[in-house]
């Protein structure tokens, strides 16, 4: 074996080890369609007073992040889509209806005097906890910031014997009559149930949304690959891969084995790359992978057919291999670049599912070109160089 080939083999082995470690260390993120969960698309709406601009949407996103944290969801995905939309993806949420309510509610709290003047708002609250009032009814106890305390002290002093009304999103909750001056603590009643009190206190802690959000799209998904289905799909993947490997072996024999090994390298590279860029694997993403597997095999098929052709043309095996790889390169490049163009455009213009497809397809094409052109070649050269004449008949020419 030439020493150059040996070093290349070592390099490929090292790459495989690195990829395997990455796959082992970084978990693969499965999309909601595969593992189940809730997905919401919310759109910010202008109000008379606040415009739903970039800043307002960014702040709304922060508020949602805080609320989702309070819900105790692990690994939520919250991201902006376009200028006014916020996408919230929660895996494995048990009570989607509650999640929707907690996340989508504006939660604008207002304290108003008898004339309807706003005394203070939810942003003057420092903390809020759910509990019950002296009659055992559900209530939210709150503490005020120093700023809020000043406002509230002034307002309660001026309004002794008169009611102060508490509104949540323009809806009257209660109108307690002020008995004495209150400084930095208070309670809100008229909430309905204990669960609602808990949710309200949670929303108050997380802050109100700067602008109201409309729910454009919501999905509650059972995992497509639910327990039973996960096993089925694993079987499908193994059978599919096994058939491809057998086919290559049967049709191309020795180079077929090399292509099969290269296909394994391809799998490692793609999975590691997906893990590194934190891609989320969805059903369309799997389609992209299948297509790129097809192309990885295709590149090898093109090369092997080319080698056969060169041998039929009278070249000896070693020369035929070199010519085969060199001549096939243009063909592989052109056919893959055109598909890569499709992937790039879909990534830029697509949303959601289409994007997931574009990412795996793009990555897959690049990895498949590398494995077919570089890895297969190194492997074949390594084997053939030991005794070119002996191996010639295994190339099926």
């Amino acid at each position, binding site marked *: 074996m030439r020493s150059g080939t040996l070093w290349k083999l070592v390099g490929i082995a090292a790459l495989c080890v690195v990829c395997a470690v990455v796959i082992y260390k970084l978990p693969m993120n499965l999309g909601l*369609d595969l593992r189940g969960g809730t997905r919401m*698309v919310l759109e910010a709406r202008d109000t008379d007073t606040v415009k739903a601009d970039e800043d307002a949407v960014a702040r709304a996103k922060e508020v949602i992040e805080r609320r989702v944290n309070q819900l105790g969801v692990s690994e939520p995905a919250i991201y902006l889509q376009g200028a006014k939309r916020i996408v919230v993806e929660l895996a494995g949420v048990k009570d989607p209806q509650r999640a929707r309510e907690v996340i989508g509610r504006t939660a604008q709290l207002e304290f108003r005097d008898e004339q309807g003047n706003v005394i203070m708002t939810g942003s003057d609250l420092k903390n809020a906890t759910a509990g019950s009032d002296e009659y055992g009814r559900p209530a939210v106890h709150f503490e005020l910031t120093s700023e809020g305390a000043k406002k509230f002290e002034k307002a309660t002093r001026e309004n002794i014997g008169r009611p102060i009304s508490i509104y949540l999103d323009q809806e009257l909750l209660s109108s307690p009559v002020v008995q004495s001056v209150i400084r930095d603590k208070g309670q809100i009643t008229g909430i309905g149930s204990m669960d609602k009190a808990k949710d309200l206190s949670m929303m108050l802690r997380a802050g109100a949304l700067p602008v109201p959000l*409309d*729910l*454009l*799209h*919501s*999905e*509650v*998904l*059972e995992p*497509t690959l639910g327990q039973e*289905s996960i096993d*089925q*799909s694993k079987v*499908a993947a193994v059978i*599919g*891969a096994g*058939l*491809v490997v057998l*086919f*290559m072996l049967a049709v191309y024999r020795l180079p077929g084995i090399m292509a099969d090994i290269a296909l394994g390298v391809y799998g490692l590279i793609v999975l590691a790359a997906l893990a590194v860029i934190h891609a989320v694997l969805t*059903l*369309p993403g799997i*389609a*992209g992978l*299948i*297509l790129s*597997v*097809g*192309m990885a*095999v*295709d590149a090898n*098929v*093109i090369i092997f*057919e080319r080698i056969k*052709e060169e041998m039929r043309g009278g070249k000896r095996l070693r020369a035929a291999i070199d010519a085969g790889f060199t001549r096939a390169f*243009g*063909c592989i490049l*052109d*056919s*893959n*670049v*055109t*598909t890569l163009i*499709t*992937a*790039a*455009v*879909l990534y*830029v*213009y*697509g*949303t*959601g*599912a*289409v994007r*997931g*497809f574009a990412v795996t*397809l793009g990555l897959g094409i690049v990895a498949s070109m590398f494995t077919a052109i570089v890895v297969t070649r190194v492997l074949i050269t390594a084997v053939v160089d030991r005794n070119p004449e002996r191996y010639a008949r295994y190339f099926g020419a």
Partner: protein
Amino acid sequence: MDIIGKRRLFLAISGILVACGIIALLTRGLNLGVDFTGGSLLRLRFERPVTASEVSEALTSRELADMNLRKAVVQPIGGTNDVQVRAQVGGRPLNDEQVGRIVATLSQRIGQVSVIESQMVEGVIGRELLSRALTAVVISWIGIIIYVSVRFEFKFAVAAVLALIHDTIIVLGAFALMGRQVNSPFIAAVLTIIGYSINDTIVIFDKIRENLRLRKKETLEELTNKSILQTLTRSLNTVITTLLAVFALFFFGGASIKDFSLALIIGLITGTYSSIFIASPIWLEWRMWERARQQRRIAAASRSKQPGPAKAR
């Protein structure tokens, strides 16, 4: 094997298939899922198998009369106790309160039921998804035309894209005919088919390009036919391996993957067919038509001067 000699036959077959596809699309239309149309999709799980009519009856009962669910589509999911219900109220998706009432009515009339999946989509977002996907596809076609025009020539580019459009229409038409639901994964399947078909076509064009460079005395028809035959083994081997993977997905994968893999199977077959029997013949016809026109022009020009043999490629 003479593929090019029978090219008019293949073009005619494809013409008929595409026409059927368009007719199916126009008359039956695509069974668009709520991802695109807006509305609600509920997957309900009962404790025993139920029929569609049982559920429809409950949905149109007196208790739910105000929601006017007569147009709701009820579809039992084979082999399970699950039923899929597609509905909208006044053109909008159902809200939580309406879903709650449906569940209450169904469990009262039929038996224990729970919502295991739901999807609520406002119409605006569905239309957006569709229009963005279409824009993306059209832009990618333009990109392909530009790239192939630079690396090959404009006629190859147009022939390749026509073959793509052919595949897309046939797959869409087949789904319209079967009345299968079209949802976001289906879009991914169509995109996969486009990606595969262009790849497949370019490999054959590459061979034609190469043979054109080495061309000796053969006619353009002979050359094209030879190029197709030279790449035929590769075309078939590649589609067989890819189909092996997709068939495994179709037969052994879970229920929701079935429609998706079905679209891929149809598309891979038409994609391979169009690369062999459609793309190259279109290019050839165009090229020969152009040559004939050139020769007529040369003939007309030489008639005024002196006659001589005109050789055109």
